[in-house]
């Protein structure tokens, strides 16, 4: 599989709420987003929710489902029906865990430029919560791994993706890249 870089953002400051890929080139078969991301929130526990919004959607047209395993381990199957964005709960690391903890993110959207079929896609990621400098807490109860699927209940091509945490701003050091495949 080969790909071409269509967009990238590296967060360096402390006030970025959203990473947005706009005016997405429509000339590829599929889209892929990969990178690392975290929230700077220090409230709650070591993980927060990931939101992905297509095309500045304002209606409840996004469905997400995932298999989530929590360290212990405790399995939880997550299903979110018809929100204005795709929701993956406890998908992102936060500064509550540590200043250097980041989550991996993989989003794959086949046939994203189609205007005749509804978009289906794959999302993977998770949190490995621990505290640097304290070896015994390298993996905590708040570690999650998720593999999920998404559906967009419209037949619109994807021209914009907004990716953001449910709480806090995006932590400096986060980096996401968008590729045409």
């Amino acid at each position, binding site marked *: *599989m*080969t*790909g*071409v*870089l*269509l*967009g*990238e953002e590296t967060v360096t400051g402390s006030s970025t709420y959203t990473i947005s890929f706009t005016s997405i080139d429509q000339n590829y078969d599929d889209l892929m987003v*990969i*990178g*690392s991301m975290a929230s700077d929130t220090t409230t709650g526990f070591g993980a927060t929710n990931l939101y992905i919004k297509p095309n500045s959607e304002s209606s409840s047209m996004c469905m997400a489902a995932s*298999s989530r*395993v929590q*360290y*212990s*381990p405790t*399995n939880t199957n997550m299903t979110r029906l018809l929100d204005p964005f795709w929701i993956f709960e406890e998908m992102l*690391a936060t500064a509550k865990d540590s200043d*250097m*903890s*980041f*989550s*991996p*993110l*993989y989003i794959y959207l086949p046939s994203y430029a189609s205007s005749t079929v509804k978009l289906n896609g794959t999302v*993977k*990621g*998770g*949190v*490995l919560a*621990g*505290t*640097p*400098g*304290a*070896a015994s807490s*390298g*993996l905590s109860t708040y*570690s*999650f*791994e998720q*593999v999920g699927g998404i559906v967009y209940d419209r037949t619109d091509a994807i021209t914009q993706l907004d990716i953001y945490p449910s709480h806090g701003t995006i932590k400096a*050091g986060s*980096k996401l*890249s968008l*590729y045409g495949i």
Partner: protein
Amino acid sequence: MAIGDGSVIIESGAMSANTLSMTAIPQTYSHLELQVTGCYDEASVANDWLYFKFNGETGTEYGFHGTQSGVGAGLTTNNIALNSSTATGGASGSYGAEFPGTQKSPNPNGVVRWFIMNYANTTVQKPFILDYCHVWRPNSTDETARLGNLVGKYPTTSTSLLTSGISQIDVIGAGSYTFKSGTRYMLVGWP
């Protein structure tokens, strides 16, 4: 890297010896993708761990967590939660993915796919997504399969190791296992 740049195969080739070292990995890409396909050249092994190390690090800095499902001896359905050297049973830490031997099939095809994010940064952890699978069922009772989905990060606890990008990846067979002809790897740089 600039908009319009394409992904690049940094190196690829056949695997045979117990250890493959990819050294002097360029620090100019945003993310890395490593694929390994094939099997161990071991007729007594259904499957065993395939280990990975970063930068030759031997400490317990290899945290990961996720699920493994499978069938076969000793495993019906399983979720694993792995961290540091616990995963691989040794004083020296590493990451692990299960990889097939030839006990169940003369030519099984294991697949490992690993995205290592923001690998060249020198300030924060390098998180990753590691997937692996292989399936073989020669008859109704003799079978082996593994499906693993893991997330993790490097380093797990050391702050001093943050100041280096990942410039070396070692792929190490379990025990003294070697790899059967046809086993291959590919390291891709994503701009």
